[in-house]
Structures are given as structure tokens and as C-alpha cells.
């Protein structure tokens, strides 16, 4: 099993969610996060004085998938999140040692 973590533009989060739901992914977790990448921060001007805002708001989506679904899911997320401009974010995957469904105690891919 893999944990896919996607950091995406806030205005693309709904598209990513819908694409994942359409592909039969049963659940995901969404967090509002802040950070920066190639886009860096931005400047705001108050009464003529410039303030540097280092972090930009992003949405972090965590989803767990079976090993066989990894590539297809990554492609889905990338297609749904992409606008083609700097700031579109990153997606990465990590190996998971174990997953359990809390309600039934099922383990492994049966718990997804």
C-alpha cells in the first residue's frame, strides 16, 4: 500500500476530489496548509510599506491506495490539479507498513 500526498492549489482541490471519487477511491483527508515552492511568497503593500508574505495557502490531500493503483492515481491527481502555471504543487508517494479499519479491525488492502 502507498500513501499519496498531494499539495495542490486551493482552487483545484475540488477537481482532485471529484476525480478520485470517480475512480472509486473510497476516502481521503484534506488539510489547509501553508508553504512555498518555486512560486515563493508574494508582497503586500499597506500604506506604501511593502510586507513580504513568505507562505502561500495550499491544500494537502492524503489518500491511501493499493500498490497496483499507484500510477493510475498519481496520473489522476496530476491531471486534475494541473493549471500549467508555477504554484501547481507536488505529489509524492510513500510506502505504508500497515493499514487498519478502526470499525472492523480489518488489516491491509481489505481496510482501504
Amino acid at each position, binding site marked *: 500500500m502507498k500513501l499519496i500526498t498531494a499539495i495542490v492549489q486551493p482552487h483545484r482541490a475540488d477537481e482532485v476530489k471529484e476525480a478520485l471519487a470517480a475512480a472509486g477511491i473510497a476516502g481521503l483527508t484534506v488539510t489547509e496548509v501553508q508553504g512555498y515552492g518555486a512560486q515563493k511568497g508574494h508582497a503586500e503593500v499597506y500604506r506604501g510599506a511593502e510586507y513580504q*508574505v513568505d507562505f502561500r495557502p495550499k491544500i494537502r490531500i492524503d489518500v491511501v491506495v493499493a500498490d497496483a493503483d499507484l500510477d493510475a492515481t498519481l496520473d489522476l491527481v496530476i491531471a486534475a490539479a494541473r493549471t500549467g502555471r508555477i504554484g501547481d504543487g507536488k505529489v509524492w508517494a510513500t510506502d505504508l507498513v500497515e493499514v487498519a479499519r478502526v470499525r472492523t479491525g480489518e488489516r491491509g488492502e481489505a481496510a482501504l
Partner: protein
Amino acid sequence: MPAADVAWMLAAFAVVLIMFPGLSLFYGGMAGTKNALNMMMMCMSTLATVSVVYVLFGHGIVVGDSIGGIIGNPSGFWGFLGIYEDPGEPMVSDPFWFAFYILFAAITVAIVASAAVGRMKFSAWLVFSLVWVTLVYLPLGHWVFGGGWMREHLDFHDYAGGTAVHMASGMGALALAFVLGPRRNTQMRPHSLPLVLVGVAMLWMGWIGFNAGTAGGANFLAQYVTLTTLLAGSTGMIGFCLVERLRDGRATTLGMCSGVIAGLVGITPAADGVDALGAMALGLAAGAVVAWACTWKTKLGIDETLDAFAVHGIGGIVGSLCVVLFGYAGSPAGIEGILFGGDWSILLAEIAAIGATCGYALVMTFVIAKVLDKLIGLRASDEDEYDGMDLSQHAETAYDAA
């Protein structure tokens, strides 16, 4: 119709009182998330400190029998004793006037608080506000509103407190910020512009009570200054936003709000002396000059955080100069502006009044702040400042995540 006078003045009083939460929101929204409550506490607490001072000896220093034109007799109205005789008919009487004057004094001190955002011990602020109102506002009030030397010997024009209220608080803020030194983190940007805007709306409403209440009754003057006060706030917006658009590329919410206050500050000394066109020109000038003046503090190297010096100090000076430049002879004040053929002597008197007010407030505030810093220490510790003044001074936070 005196009963109508009483009714209007009581209404004006209530409206002016709204300026305190208004100023708290205006400054609180501009402070960082971790200093918003402390900012509001400093503003509101001036009603407490100034009321005590006023009842004990403050009112005497302003309007008591003059001692050499410098101060009124401090014991003149001690305890507000003996002012309670019912005149037997409806008229605006002493108990009302004494209460009304307290609001003027307290709002002046509250403006100075803006200079202290994020780094001044709350206890030190309370002591400072007691001393500042006593040694800066009350003597200036005597010179301008009471029987002091400026009013006796200078033929200057100040309708509702451009000198004693706005220039004094602007210069006081500059001197206090200089003595306090800059915040550790000057990159803390305004945290809630919606709060700022609500605060400005309340202040604008209060300003109508302030200026039209200064008319003293339900009369023509009150209606006249309502018009000029509205117009100056409106064109103040234009002036400030125009400078922003040209200089920074965008008109901003904070700029619009600041422009309104700049225009209102400008019209305060001039509300009874300019006509509609004059009020609009004055507001435009005040808004534009204040937008420029907001950048001066960086050059001075002083972290005068919320720009009271620019908005109230410079805004007040612009307004005072405008009334002698394009005063309208047919106005209630009957001032013939220099541009319309008026006599140059009023300009000299105005400049003398501006110089005396600003110079006195600047020097006296500097001395007070320096002495208090030696005696009790004005600044919070670095750790307290880092944690935020809301948490370190009041053991509270305005927001869950702050």
C-alpha cells in the same frame, strides 16, 4: 428652542462615545493577531484614566481661571462640586459639558496609544496616559479652548480641535514611538481589514457628533458642519487612493479607510470655515498628503506603527492651512481665504498656533516618555513581545490559532 438643543447634544454625546470602540477596531484590525486585544485595551482604557483626571483636576486646568495664560486653576472644578443646580428650564448645562469634554480628552490620548502597539507594558501605558493627558493635553486645551495665551493673543482658527486633539496626538505618537524604539518584528501586517473598515465607519459616524456637537445646539452651524464633515471624509478617500494607485499600483482597503480619517482630521479645524467645494478640496489635499506622509516614518527610522503622526499630525496641519488658504467668507466662521483676497496675517497666526502646538506636544511627550522609562520602564520584555501582548499582558488571545 433650547429643548431641541439638549436633545441634539445628548444624541451627539452618545455618537461620540461610539468613537472609542470604533478606534479600537480601527487600530486593533491594523495590529497583528497577537496584539489586537492589547491595542483595544489601550484605546478603551483612556476613558477610565482620563475620566478620573478630569473630575479631580483636569477640567480646572482646561477652563479654570487662567494662571498666566499657561494653565487654568487645577482646583477650579475639583470633584465637579457645585455644578448641579437645575436651571429650571431645558438648556445644555454644566454636567453635560463636563462629560462632553472628557470624551474629547480621552479620544486624544487613545490616538497616542497607536504608537505603542505590540511592545509597551499595559501598566506603563496606564501611567503614561495619566501623565500625558495632564501635562500635554490639558495645558494645550487651556491654550486653545480655555482662557490660555493662544486664544487670547493669536488670531488663529481651530473649529473643533485640529490643534489640541489631532496635532497633539500625532506629535505625541511620534515622540512616544521614538522613545519606545521599534518592534522586534516590524513585518507584522494588518491582520483584519474588515475590522478596520467597521471601525472607520463608526469613527465617521462619531465625527458627525464630534463636529456637529461642537456647534453647541440644534442650530444652523451643526447642519453646516455635517455637510463639510461628510464631504471631506469622502474626498479624503479619493486623495489617498489616488496616491496609492500612482505610487503602488493599486487602491487598497486600508488606503480608503485611512483616507476617510485623513479627510475627517483635516476638516476638524475647518468645518465651519469652508464651503462644499472648499471641504472637498481640503479632503482631497489631506488624503493625498497623508498618503505621502505615511512613508516618512521609514526615512525617520521611527516605528510609528499605525501612522498617527501622518494621519492626525500632518492631516491636522493640512486642514488648518486649508482653512486660511481657501476659507469661505460666507461661512459661519466668516474667514476670507488668502486665495480669495483674505489678509495674510491669518496665515502667520495659524502657523504660530501649529508650531506652538506641535513643538510643545513633541518635546513634552519626549520628556514624559524618557522620564517614565527611567522610573518604571515602558517596554515589555523581548519574550513578552514575542509571545504577543494579548497573551503576555492580559493572559488572553483574540483568536484560537493565535
